[in-house]
C-alpha cells in the first residue's frame, strides 16, 4: 500500500518552523496533529463527552480522497440543515459560537477521525498515549502534541522552545474565541 501526501492545508496564522518533508514522508495518506488534551466538552457548549485528545484542523496533510476527509466533507454537506441552523439570526453570538462548535469545529473533526480509526485499525487501536507521543495507524500518522500544538498551552500543551518535535506554531491562541464575532458573521 502506498498513499501519497500531496496537499497541506494551513491556516494563514500558522508559522512553519520545520520543513514539511521532515514531518511527512509521503507514505501516509493523512498526517494530523493534536491541539488539545483532556477537554471537557461541557465547557464548550457540548455535552457529548470528554475528549482525551482533540485533533487540530488548522494544519493537516493528506492525499486526495482520504476516507476521513471524505467522511467529514459529506457529513457536513448532509448536515445542510444544521449548518443553516447555526446561522439562524435569532441566535445570540455566544449561542451561535456554541452551535458552530457542535457541528464543524475540531471536535467534530476528531469524531470523524475516530470513526475512520474504528474502521481502519482492525483491532489495533491507538491510545491517548499514542496521541501524546505520536503514533501510526493504517494510512494515518498522528504527530506528537508538540508537532502542531506546542504553543497551545491554554489547551494543555507543554511549551518548551527547544522541543525537537515542533513543526508548526500558531500565532493566535484561541483565535475562534478571540475573533469569534467577526468569523461568525453571515455573508452580507
Amino acid at each position, binding site marked *: 500500500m502506498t*498513499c*501519497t*501526501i500531496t*496537499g*497541506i*492545508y*494551513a491556516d*494563514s*496564522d*500558522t508559522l*512553519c*518552523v*520545520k520543513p*514539511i*518533508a521532515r514531518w511527512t514522508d*509521503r507514505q501516509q495518506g493523512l498526517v494530523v496533529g493534536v491541539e488539545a488534551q483532556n477537554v471537557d466538552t461541557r465547557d464548550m457548549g457540548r455535552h*457529548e*463527552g*470528554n*475528549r*482525551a*485528545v482533540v485533533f487540530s*484542523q488548522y494544519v*493537516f496533510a493528506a*492525499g*486526495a480522497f*482520504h476516507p476521513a*476527509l*471524505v*467522511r467529514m*466533507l459529506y*457529513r*457536513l*454537506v*448532509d448536515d445542510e440543515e*444544521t449548518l443553516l*441552523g447555526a*446561522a*439562524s439570526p*435569532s*441566535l445570540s453570538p455566544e*449561542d451561535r459560537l456554541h*452551535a*458552530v462548535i*457542535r*457541528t*464543524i469545529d475540531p471536535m467534530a473533526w476528531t469524531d470523524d477521525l*475516530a470513526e475512520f*480509526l474504528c*474502521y*481502519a485499525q482492525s483491532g489495533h*487501536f*491507538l491510545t*491517548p498515549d499514542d496521541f501524546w507521543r505520536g503514533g501510526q495507524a493504517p*494510512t494515518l500518522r498522528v504527530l506528537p502534541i508538540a508537532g502542531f500544538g506546542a504553543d497551545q498551552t491554554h489547551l494543555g500543551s507543554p511549551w518548551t522552545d527547544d522541543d525537537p518535535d515542533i513543526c508548526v506554531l500558531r500565532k493566535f491562541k484561541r483565535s475562534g474565541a478571540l475573533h*469569534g464575532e*467577526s*468569523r461568525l458573521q*453571515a*455573508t452580507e
Partner: protein
Amino acid sequence: MHFPGMLKVYRVAKTWVYLNTLDTSSSNYDSEEAELTEYAASLLRKYLANYSEPATRLGLTPHVEDKDEVEQCLRKAAAAGYEVDQAYDETFHAYTELYMTLDSLTNVPTVIFFTISNKTAIPLSVQASIQSWRDLNPGFNVAIHDDHDVETLVELLMPELHEIWQNLLTIERADIYRFLVMTFLGGNVCPGL
C-alpha cells in the same frame, strides 16, 4: 429525510434539539416530545454497542447522565422523520478498505493551501506566515484562495453546497473549504484542476 451513520444521527439529534432549545421561536421545539419510538432507542443501543470499545480507547468517554438525554433526542428525531441510512456505513467501510489497497497514481509536487478574504490585500502578518511556509518548503506549490476563488471551487466541486453557500457563516465556509480542497485537490487524482 435520512442521515448516514450512527454517530451522524447522534450528533444531528443533539444539535437539532440544542438549536431548537436556543431558538424558542421554532415551531419544532415542543411538538413531538411524547412520540417516543422503540426504533430510535434501538439506534442508540446499537451506536453504543458499536462504538463503546474504540471510543473508550480513544478517551471519548460519554457522560453517563447524557445517555438519557441522547436517547430522548434520538426518539424525537425519529418521530420527526429522521432515520439511519445503514447502507452509508457499509459503503464507507468498503471505501476505506478500497482506499487502503490503492497505489499512488503520480508523483506530483505538493500544494500548500491557504485561504484569506481578499488576496489583493493580504495583511503583513499573514504574508509573513505564508512566507515561512515558502521559505522552508521551496519545492512546494502555494495556492492562496480568497472568498471569490473559494466560491468558484464550491460551485465546481460541490454544487449542491453552493446553493446554500451565501447563507452560511464565515467560519462555516472557512472550515468547509479546507476539507473540500484537501479532498478534491490533493493533486494526485485531479492535478488539472
